[in-house]
């Protein structure tokens, strides 16, 4: 009996922690795997929608990984993508309904992008690559980790876009009025999606500068 207990892995073993932290930096879904870019460009004009999107995606990746991992031994391989889609779509609709019920103004801002979480490549990617072949708990951690990695980039991008585009952070005015009177103006370009792409590019640059292992060999 005691040997069986010894074999059981603790909930937060080093391996499991790595599932959670890996996607935040060295295996980041946006900056390293370059997945989920479209929604990252669309919802990062302000911090608040970016934060809600981060929560929504984390919930969906975490729980879809968990559910698929629980079902993994019963899913017929021929319809596995359909099964994954049904699970993801159910969770996304649920998240959308909850947002509409409790944070209506944010749900209005996110509009179609919550629905489009269904097509977010990160989710399907994690289901296929991880949840189909791993136990529920590690799969859940992997999903949450990828959500965190996605959300971190979203928040960093939204921080710079909101600061320079609107002069606010989470809706609070940061840039003092005296600066506006001195001739400073918000940069309208920062509100538009192309600047999000450039910001993501700068983040990738900075990340690779500090993590030389990410740079591809010629």
């Amino acid at each position, binding site marked *: 009996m005691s040997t069986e207990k010894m074999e059981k892995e603790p909930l937060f073993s080093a391996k499991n922690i790595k599932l959670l932290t890996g996607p935040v930096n060295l295996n980041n879904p946006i900056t390293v795997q370059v997945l989920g870019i479209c929604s990252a460009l669309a919802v990062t*004009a302000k911090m608040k929608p970016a934060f809600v999107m981060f929560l929504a995606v984390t919930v969906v990746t975490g729980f879809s990984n968990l559910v698929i991992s629980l079902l993994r031994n*019963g*899913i*017929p*391989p*021929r*319809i596995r993508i*359909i*099964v994954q889609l*049904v*699970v993801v*779509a*159910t969770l996304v*609709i*649920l998240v959308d*309904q*909850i947002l*509409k*019920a*409790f944070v*209506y*103004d944010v749900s*209005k801002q996110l*509009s*179609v992008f919550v629905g489009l979480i269904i097509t977010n490549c990160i989710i399907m990617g994690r289901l296929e690559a991880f949840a189909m072949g791993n136990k529920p708990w590690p799969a859940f951690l992997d999903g949450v980790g990828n959500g965190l990695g996605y959300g971190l980039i979203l928040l960093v991008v939204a921080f710079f876009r909101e600061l320079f585009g609107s002069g606010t952070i989470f809706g609070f005015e940061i840039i003092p009025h005296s600066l506006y009177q001195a001739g400073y103006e918000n940069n*309208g370009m920062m*509100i*538009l999606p192309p600047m999000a792409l450039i910001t993501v590019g700068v983040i990738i640059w900075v990340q690779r500068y500090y993590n030389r292992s990410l740079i591809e060999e010629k």
Partner: protein
Amino acid sequence: MYTNGYIFRYAAILVILAAAFLSLASVLLKPFQERNKAIDKMEGILSAARVEGVNATNAIPYFNKYIVEELVINPKGDVVSNYTKSPKDEAPAFKLDLKMELYKKAHNKPYVLPLYIADKDGQKIYIIPMRGTGLWGPIWGNMALSSDLNTVIGVYFGDQSETPGLGGEIKSAKFKDQFIGKEIFDKNGDFTSIEVVKGGVKKLPTGQRIHGVDALSGATLTSNGVNDMIKDVLDSYLAYIKKNR
């Protein structure tokens, strides 16, 4: 290993479970969502009348306080029903679906229209709800007219999916504030609507500038959508407006 029978059974059970789960969630969350939509509508109406300090938490008491009459009118300008009781969100006018009514209008079927009358510090304000099409999806709004049914007190716009930073700017104060003080009738009493002018109102002759606002640069199609929405909707209310001026 997996027979066709198994696959069909698996798919059927999964889908039924998912559907049952979502139906349950929808039923449970519906009252909250309906309430949010009603509050949003109230905020839009009060915002057009330029009532200060309205937000999601105080919209219901403010709406009950400022809105004194909610009318349903027909295209001939007659009042079909008149509601002055409280709570104001129980009014037939408030429950009317403008999208449905405008759809009936487009198909030459009989339709009715909602009209709100507010009392703001003794000033009588008529608020007309509007709905039209932008570039990517529907746009909507409200226009508040003063008691002469000519001068604009304020407007409110909303959109589903106009481009942020371009067409989405119809929601900005800078665009909306231009409408304040504009007039929808000229000196002869002819209906002019309010034109959203590409290139700016300075292109209009001096006398007509009171009937125009600047279009948004980079958002011609959304601006045209706003222009058409105002013209079409005011046109439907014209009979009532003319009768009561």
